[in-house]
């Protein structure tokens, strides 16, 4: 190994892909066969209809990440893969916090909490209140610590989404690409709901 494990850091892998069933598994296998842990994975439509985007976070050396990115890009249904450090992307994670309404109303200065942590109230019910905040990991973690004393019932954090700071060029290419070579529709199994109508042996 040319790099010492101390060189490990968080990398954000961005993959532009076709929207095809099974591709998630194909990409996941690239990590699992090497016994690499994925810290976070998000898949969603990209800014261009017909092209999907994976955001994958991995804590590794650049040498390993470079090879992984190449292996992902090698898959037939993958268009392009980038990998970036945290400094090269704008990234966010979203978190939801559920706390008992009576405790939070009685003991906490809700307004101050919201202001200090950039949070907002999503829902208020008699028995519980749900807050939401977005930010970096340490920011969403901080609010957990703050809310624990108020009887935090449930907490969930989304996968990371990241935007590459310098991606103008690729975006233009991608738009042109989609215009000249439109992608095909994903085909799903339409028969699962007709089971009683089909005879088979």
């Amino acid at each position, binding site marked *: 190994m040319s790099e010492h494990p101390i060189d490990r850091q968080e990398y954000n892998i961005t993959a532009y892909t*076709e929207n095809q069933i*099974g591709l998630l598994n194909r990409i996941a296998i690239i990590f699992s066969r090497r016994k690499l842990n994925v810290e976070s994975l998000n898949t969603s439509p990209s800014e261009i209809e017909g092209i999907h985007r994976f955001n994958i976070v991995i804590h590794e050396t650049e040498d390993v990440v470079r090879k992984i990115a190449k292996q992902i890009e090698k898959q*037939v249904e993958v268009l392009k893969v980038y990998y970036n450090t945290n400094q090269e992307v704008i990234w966010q994670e979203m978190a939801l916090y559920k706390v008992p309404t009576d405790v939070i109303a009685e003991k906490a200065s809700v307004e101050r909490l919201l202001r200090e942590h950039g949070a907002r109230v999503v829902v208020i019910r008699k028995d519980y209140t749900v807050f939401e905040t977005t930010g970096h990991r340490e920011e969403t973690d901080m609010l957990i610590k703050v809310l624990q004393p108020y009887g935090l019932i449930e907490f969930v954090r989304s996968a990371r989404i990241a935007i590459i700071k310098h991606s103008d060029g690729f975006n233009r290419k991608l738009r042109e690409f989609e215009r000249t070579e439109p992608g095909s529709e994903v085909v799903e*199994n*339409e*028969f*699962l709901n007709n089971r009683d109508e089909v005879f*088979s042996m």
Partner: protein
Amino acid sequence: MLTQDKTTQLAPETARQTMSGAEMTLRALLAEGVDTVFGYPGGAIIPIYDALYDFERQLNHVLVRHEQGGIHAAQGYARASGKVGVVFATSGPGATNLVTGLADAQIDSTPLVCITGQVFAHLLGTDAFQETDIINITTPVTKWNFQVTEASQLPEALAKAFYLARSGRPGPVLIDITKNAQLQQFDFPEYQPCNHIRSYRPAPIVRPEYVEAAATLINQAKRPFVLWGQGVTLGQAEEEFRAFIEKSGIPAAWTILGAGVLPTSHPLNVGMLGMHGNYGPNVLTNECDVLIAIGMRFDDRVTGRLDKYAKQAQVIHLDIDPTEIDKNVATTVPVWGDCKETLPMLTALIEAKTHPEWRRRFEQYRAEEVAAVIQDELFPTSDELTMGEVIQQLNELTRGEAIVVTDVGQHQMVACRYARFNHARSNITSGGLGTMGFALPAAIGAKFGRPDRPVVAIIGDGGIQMTIQELGTIMQTGVEVKIIILNNQFLGMVRQWQELFHERRYSFVNIASPDYVTVASGYSIAGRRVAERHELQSSLREMLQHPGSFLLEVMVTRENNIFPMVPQGCSVSEIRLR
């Protein structure tokens, strides 16, 4: 060939536009130039087999005895002919029996299209009879796979399958077709082969500046060394490679999958790389100043310890697959692209040289290896037969014109080291995966792929017992395969490791064998058993001259070791001669 005697043969109805998914599948195969299919029927693929009944004249279907035999046969067919190998299997266990062959084809870049039947689409996920999730099972071992649940998806899926299997870096593709899609009638317009997929680049764009940089390095080199692999064959670049080698005057060594691209007798062919390769090529890898890797992937069996591999050399790597560049060995100059395209560009830019001093170094090491290993292996003075002398005698009779198909183990290394090859696509072996049981079915497939060439399968007493049922395929089809079993009454390669590295603790390697000649006879295959030197050449001659398949069992030294050897964890410089 033995085929069913049928009174009706239907001509294809080119004008018909409505047909079943099963029929369309067969028409797609014909449109893709397929002439031979290896397969085994079962419930979920009956519609395709039903359609096949009407295509017997156009498609030669070879009924194997096990799906693993089917896929290895398809591999042998593809490797010998350069065409796409095709295999049919049913769902569930039929499909899972393909997995070893898929993994083998994936790692050795063999173009295959596997068509599996699947349960009805409405039953998917219900644990129906003979249902397995073959798409997810085979995802890690296929270049691409796809499940078809409606007949209308078939034309595009099959066209993509063939295109992906054969283009770029070839590989296995699996198409899983639910039974309803096979049965469904649909309007089928004319078949359109695929030659482009928007998210797939079969070969990277060649960048001339890198070719120029590579040529500069080569022109400055005092001790350049070429390593070539199967990529040259897959790129159909044998002539371009030879032109490059002959102009550059650079000594060249091969991986086992690259064997035959330069004939064994070529003066610039300095031998085999790797763990059991030749002495000079291994040692001098760590003395060259420029290492030029062409269509090879620096497999660990070639490199030994990476931290002591060619550290002194500037590395030029020509490969069609960008993931191979810098994967194992850091490259000074990467040359991405199909070597059919890059090699002529490189040849045009290099100076004609001969490197006489440097080449002499290889000759000196060769002489050392002959004295220490090769002489005794090929011309033994002991009473017992050696594997090497069997190969040597075979060389004298076939003169390098045979396709040699080997299984995995000691006999494989001996055959690869000593068999003479005049042509590419002549050494068919399971290189990357090391699949025991590969040779017999692969030899059957190779003969179907190249009926004009003699095919000799060289198999150990372990490997033959893994797929021995394929003798039934030989019996039924009448295909002509010459089978040599090199029987040392051991699982020899494991025994060798146990001897060298585990204090001779022979744990479960003393495998017993049946009477192979009697077994062959049961399948109506002629055979003979040899244990004496004076019978060896006559029995080989009898085998080669026999009209039809022949099984020759040769009893060889029980505890012979394969040397040279780069022990595990050692560098190529630390190769042992004994």
